[in-house]
């Protein structure tokens, strides 16, 4: 039992209701709101002008010149690490990683750069490196000298919960001792203008499960130290509570609206409870997603009633009524408050009910206690935190006061590559209408998609077809997807932002906004393909396409799904060329595309007689903190990722027949590959995919895996290792063998 115990040993929180966990908790239980008139965004001509901002200037959050999302996160992570008493040193730093949730990366810096650029042509190049979401976990890792696995989970409003779930899963799999895990998002004109355009903002303070007139945006960061019990015990750490099971699912319904029947939400909640070895009757408290939009609140009411109506002591509240909706940080901010609820046996309220509202609530609540206006003091043994996002991504996680054995669902089945789908272009892809016709994708659907989502959709559908997988009602919940990307939908983000700068916050594009979140591509894909399982997008620089195979393999091992699509996707447009040119990088070397690789359990593959390109026998991820944008000095992490992939494959690097490399023509990058590969593999052949497809970033690192699988399937080699790099010092490696 002790082996799979994962615990919370540190908490850090900054949001509109306080600058540390104690302040926030005190405000939350006393029903104190952080919602006020917005200061950081011009709300002229907008029908709403309230928000939940953090009253601390960026330069007071931390000393570095980072985007505000990174700085908020460093502030919360500093509190959490200090609280945990974790002493990071050279010996243990590779065993503590960083997984951070976020919505659209450095939105405030994107606004600043293009405002400077459009108004007087004075955009500061340093702001460009603050734009991608990939910078955030790297910046946190750099600040605290953490060298374990990093990931930036960019699943919009579910990101902060998914990051905790992934951290706990990796610890249970023995991949780390601990994670600094959570989420962060700053207030931005991008989000304000976007939700304003969708008419999804409440003109007053949001009132979840009440008036449900829309959301109120907030900002902040919530960070938890998630640690293996054994490790926490060995260092005599204070333990807040247990992290039990979690559940991640996909609605496959609509890009912005939840499934009104709540099926995806209920799948995430049910999975979390079942994976914890619990029943709905065991749950004492749910910190609801509770955004305050009519569509969310109706669907969540229905989901909660359907699952929990037989539970006589359930309390449900939405702390967003005080913190606002902090998007990528929401799940982790609420996780901190949920942990406190478990520890303090107190449930924070949902505020904002008038006497009249209370009468209406009675009818809607039935037997469930919705904790209106004032806190509830009660025993909280088991608590659930829900997060439901744009793109139909759902995540739930369970925290428990006392140790509890959770079911071991580890699936040790062999894992095979059973399908490959590619769409690549150097420098750009031709996306013809025939590509859509191939898969019967109608114009009414594909015209909604930005380029990033289009690339993803086509490669994913090609992979499913290549694997001969028909998605049906029976298998839809057993199929998931991990998308890796370096730059995400940057073209759509920049286009949306420029329009807001030129035409005002009140004139954001409702058509474009849904595509500005990094997980829109995964959302569209799940809607079209009909897959309803795990659905995560990880923005972690160039290596993210290969890391997606590692992540997908972990999901299969964890027993969550039987088929995973692992993808790398990055676009090349005038916008990406402009940004890389300004940085003086990859001039004329950028490529673009999407490569999807199907990973499948042996049982599933054999049951349907699938063809097998290769067997995935080992995988590993590693990080050595250097400044985001740089690689020099991080080669030890490449070595470590390769060793880890070989160790898990039960081979030595010398047993590898060939290597798929990541060289891209940048001298510092090529030098790292050359020195580490020659040291570990001697004169084994190295296949360089980027010499043909260009630096297609995450698409290229996924292509490395696809190329390796094809070489094996063509019997050119028996065992191939692929390794990829990311700026900031992240690396992934996989080992494929003859099936």
């Amino acid at each position: 039992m002790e082996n799979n115990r994962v615990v919370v040993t540190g908490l850090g929180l900054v949001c509109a209701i306080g600058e540390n966990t104690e302040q926030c908790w005190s405000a939350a239980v006393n029903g104190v709101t952080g919602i006020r008139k917005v200061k950081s965004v011009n709300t002229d001509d907008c029908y709403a002008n309230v928000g939940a901002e953090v009253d601390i200037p960026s330069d007071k959050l931390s000393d570095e010149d980072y985007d505000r999302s990174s700085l908020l996160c460093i502030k919360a992570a500093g509190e959490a690490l200090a609280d945990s008493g974790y002493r990071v040193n050279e010996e243990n730093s590779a065993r503590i990683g960083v997984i951070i949730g976020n919505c659209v990366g450095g939105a405030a810096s994107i606004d600043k750069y293009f405002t400077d650029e459009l108004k007087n042509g004075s955009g500061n190049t340093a702001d460009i490196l603050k734009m991608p979401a990939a910078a955030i976990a790297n910046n946190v890792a750099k600040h605290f000298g953490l060298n374990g696995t990093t990931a930036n989970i960019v699943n919009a409003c579910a990101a902060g919960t998914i990051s905790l779930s992934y951290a706990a899963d990796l610890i249970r799999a023995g991949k780390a001792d601990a994670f600094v895990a959570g989420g962060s998002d700053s207030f931005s004109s991008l989000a304000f203008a976007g939700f304003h355009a969708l008419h999804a903002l409440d003109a007053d303070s949001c009132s979840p499960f009440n008036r449900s007139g829309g959301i109120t945006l907030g900002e902040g960061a919530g960070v938890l130290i998630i640690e293996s019990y054994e490790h926490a015990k060995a260092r005599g750490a204070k333990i807040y509570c247990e992290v039990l099971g979690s559940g991640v699912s996909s609605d496959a319904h609509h890009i912005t609206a939840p499934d009104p029947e709540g099926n995806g939400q209920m799948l995430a909640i049910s999975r979390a409870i079942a994976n914890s070895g619990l029943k709905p009757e065991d749950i004492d408290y749910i910190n609801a997603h509770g955004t305050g939009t009519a569509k969310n609140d109706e669907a969540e009411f229905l989901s909660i009633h359907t699952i929990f109506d037989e539970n006589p002591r359930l309390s449900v509240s939405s702390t967003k009524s005080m913190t606002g909706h902090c998007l990528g940080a929401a799940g982790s901010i609420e996780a901190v408050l949920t942990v406190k609820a478990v520890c303090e046996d107190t449930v924070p309220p949902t505020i904002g009910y008038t006497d009249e509202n209370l009468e209406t609530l009675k009818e809607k609540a039935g037997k469930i206690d919705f904790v209106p206006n004032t806190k509830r003091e009660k025993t909280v043994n088991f608590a659930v935190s829900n997060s439901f996002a744009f793109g139909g991504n759902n995540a739930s996680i369970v925290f428990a006061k006392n140790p509890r054995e959770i079911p071991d669902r580890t699936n040790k089945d062999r894992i095979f590559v059973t399908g490959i789908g590619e769409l690549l272009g150097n420098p750009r892809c031709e996306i013809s209408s025939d590509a859509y016709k191939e898969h019967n994708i109608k114009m009414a659907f594909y015209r909604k998609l930005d380029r990033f989502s289009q690339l993803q959709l086509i490669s994913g559908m090609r992979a499913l077809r290549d694997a001969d997988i028909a998605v049906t009602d029976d298998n839809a919940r057993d199929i998931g997807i991990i998308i890796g990307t370096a730059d995400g939908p940057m073209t759509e983000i920049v286009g949306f932002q420029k329009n807001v700068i030129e035409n005002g916050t009140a004139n954001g594009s409702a058509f474009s906004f849904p595509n500005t979140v990094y997980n829109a591509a995964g959302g569209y894909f799940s809607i079209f393909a009909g897959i309803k399982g795990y659905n995560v997008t990880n923005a972690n620089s160039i290596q993210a396409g290969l890391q997606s195979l590692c992540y997908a393999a972990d999901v299969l091992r964890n027993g969550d799904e039987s088929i995973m699509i692992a993808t790398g996707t990055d676009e090349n447009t005038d916008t990406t060329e402009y940004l890389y040119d300004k940085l003086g990088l990859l001039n004329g070397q950028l490529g673009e595309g999407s490569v999807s690789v199907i990973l499948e359990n042996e049982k599933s593959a054999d049951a349907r007689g699938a063809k097998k390109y290769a067997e995935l026998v080992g995988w590993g991820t590693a990080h050595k903190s250097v400044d985001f944008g740089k690689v020099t000095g991080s080669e030890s992490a490449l070595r470590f990722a390769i060793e880890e992939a070989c160790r898990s494959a039960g081979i030595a690097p010398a047993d590898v027949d060939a290597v798929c490399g990541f060289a891209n023509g940048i001298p510092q990058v090529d030098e790292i590959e050359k020195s580490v590969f020659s040291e570990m593999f001697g004169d084994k052949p190295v296949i360089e995919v980027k010499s043909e497809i260009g630096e297609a970033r995450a698409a290229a690192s996924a292509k490395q895996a696809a190329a390796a699988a094809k070489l094996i399937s063509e019997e050119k080699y028996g065992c191939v290792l692929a390794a990829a790099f990311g700026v900031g010092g992240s690396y992934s490696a996989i080992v494929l063998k003859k099936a």
Partner: protein
Amino acid sequence: MANTEICEKIKGMLVENLRIPADELEYDSELFGDDIGLDSIDSIEIIAGIDNLFGVQMTGAARENFLSIETLAKYVEEHQ
């Protein structure tokens, strides 16, 4: 028959803002039906686009005005 100049401007806006392929969009194509398949988010964009182009407010205008480029153009002509 609505004013061709207005129709052409509206078509350009729909192609640009809603990524509808120009060769699939006729003045009488059914915008929210099977032809083009627009939805409620698109209608927000159309209202903003018409306001930008012609200074005509369509918030709250009856559904039948949104049927096609022709009906939109007719509404614009009558409210300019």
